[in-house]
């Protein structure tokens, strides 16, 4: 039986970004907030991600967004009152350079990061090995390290945001699919769901890799594609690896969770665009080859599970945030593999924009219009 209702804002997508937007809007008392998720919370990209949180970037904007998110992760257990921990562990990120080009980029990145107060530093291979004794440094040219980077539990962060939003009066509708969005006179009027219609003047598109499909419901084309990335996890062992270890040229990252398991992922430059989330044998072989070169003892661990998720890619690997030409339709998408780590600050910024406050970080350069204007903010440091 379809039930129609009305809301002051509807957020489409129950991943970590949507949950964060819902919480921050509810916290501002924006009125009746409804979060719509077609499956269960964190069922998409959030629940499949590598869980890392880093502040080491090649653009000022990504640095500022990540730096503020880290501050928010640090306070999150207290702020959201979740009955489990979000498991934020600040073991740092160790980024490895294997080419001159990479090394030169790292020197620039560290200079930028330090100018913004991010405590990153350039390390020699020997200094890197002192932090990660199992590291094979035979072809490492240099490394950068930021001790306040880390990782958190994506499921718990999402459930914590959604739970806090609920306590502030927001409604979370899981297993509810958006079928269309009605626009009247250039303004958002209604969200059509399989469980009924929701009258609203504000819609936030936080549908991750499906954001392009949601934008099309209001007639907007966004330059955007979905791309499969794969991950595996090992059996748990005693804590031996503090930081996330990452290499852009090898396209890999690897961390040990507080639980003890090692989680690692690898990008494939030949991955076609699309919505497949199947795991492949090729990934296991490629991942095993790369990680046993970088962290040889990890080869002795047993893989218990592998899976895949989707990056929501934009041409400049920066998210698309804020208002659009359709009045009342806002974007929080295109995170290009970094949605989890940017979700806390994204939720707050979107809430500020929607509530007509001055955003605490200037995100005007991240609007949809930048692609037409040709004002891309290219991020050089992406796996």
């Amino acid at each position, binding site marked *: 039986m379809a039930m129609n209702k009305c809301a002051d804002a509807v957020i489409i997508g129950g991943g970590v970004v949507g949950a964060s937007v819902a919480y921050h809007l509810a916290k501002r008392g924006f009125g009746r907030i409804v979060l719509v998720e077609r499956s269960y919370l964190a069922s998409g990209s959030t629940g499949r991600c590598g869980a890392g949180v880093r502040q080491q970037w090649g653009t000022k904007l990504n640095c500022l967004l990540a730096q503020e998110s880290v501050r928010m992760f640090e306070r999150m257990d207290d702020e959201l009152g979740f009955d489990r921990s979000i498991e934020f562990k600040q073991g740092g990120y160790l980024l490895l350079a294997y080419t001159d080009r990479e090394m030169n980029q790292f020197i620039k990145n560290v200079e930028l990061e330090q100018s913004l107060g991010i405590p990153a530093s350039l390390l020699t291979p020997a200094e890197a090995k002192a932090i990660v004794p199992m590291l094979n440094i035979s072809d490492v040219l240099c490394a950068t390290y930021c001790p306040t980077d880390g990782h958190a539990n994506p499921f718990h962060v999402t459930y914590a945001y959604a739970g806090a939003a609920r306590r502030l009066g927001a409604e979370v509708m899981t297993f509810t699919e958006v079928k269309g969005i009605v626009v009247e006179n250039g303004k958002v009027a209604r969200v059509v769901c399989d469980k009924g219609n929701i009258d609203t003047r504000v819609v936030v598109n936080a549908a991750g890799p499906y954001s392009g499909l949601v934008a099309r419901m209001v007639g907007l084309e966004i330059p955007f594609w979905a791309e499969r990335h794969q991950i595996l996890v090992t059996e748990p062992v005693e804590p031996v690896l503090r930081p996330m270890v990452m290499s852009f040229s090898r396209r890999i990252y690897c961390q040990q969770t507080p639980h003890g398991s090692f989680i690692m992922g690898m990008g494939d430059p030949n991955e076609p665009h699309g919505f497949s989330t199947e795991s492949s044998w090729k990934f296991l072989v490629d991942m095993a080859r790369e990680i046993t070169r970088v962290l040889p*003892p*990890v080869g002795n*661990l047993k*893989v218990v*599970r592998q899976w895949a998720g989707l990056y929501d890619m934009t041409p400049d690997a920066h998210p698309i945030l804020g208002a659009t030409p359709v009045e009342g339709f806002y974007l929080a998408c295109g995170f290009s593999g970094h949605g989890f780590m940017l979700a806390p600050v994204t939720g707050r910024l979107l809430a500020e924009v929607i509530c007509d406050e001055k955003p605490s970080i200037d995100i005007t350069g991240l609007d949809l219009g930048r692609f037409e204007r040709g004002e891309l903010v290219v991020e050089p440091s992406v796996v």
Partner: protein
Amino acid sequence: MACAKPEGEGAPGGSEGGAAAGDVVVICRCEDVTLDEIRDLIARGYTTIEEIKRITRCGMGPCQGRTCRQLVLAEIARATAKDIASVAPGRFRPPTKPVRLGGAVAGAPGPDVEGFEGDGDEQVR
């Protein structure tokens, strides 16, 4: 089936289990998840195995849910008054059995690499 069979009113498997009232009944032995935790989550509206897995890690350990999956499904079925066959069993992910990471590498060194204690019996090829 597994020995982690809970007892109590309406518990799956009837009353032949060994647990007495007040005992801690472990459902997921890899990740130490108890029957009380599962029932608490179901009562709070988490009625799919995918949600329960993601909140508690139930079924994410080395056995990949071989023991606990059926037990959790039975609890969900009981609490939601559904037939167990109609409760979604959750996604099964590869590999079927844990495999040594180094074993997937062509020309990999054997289990003699220094580091973790691996038993080296899980060569992929």
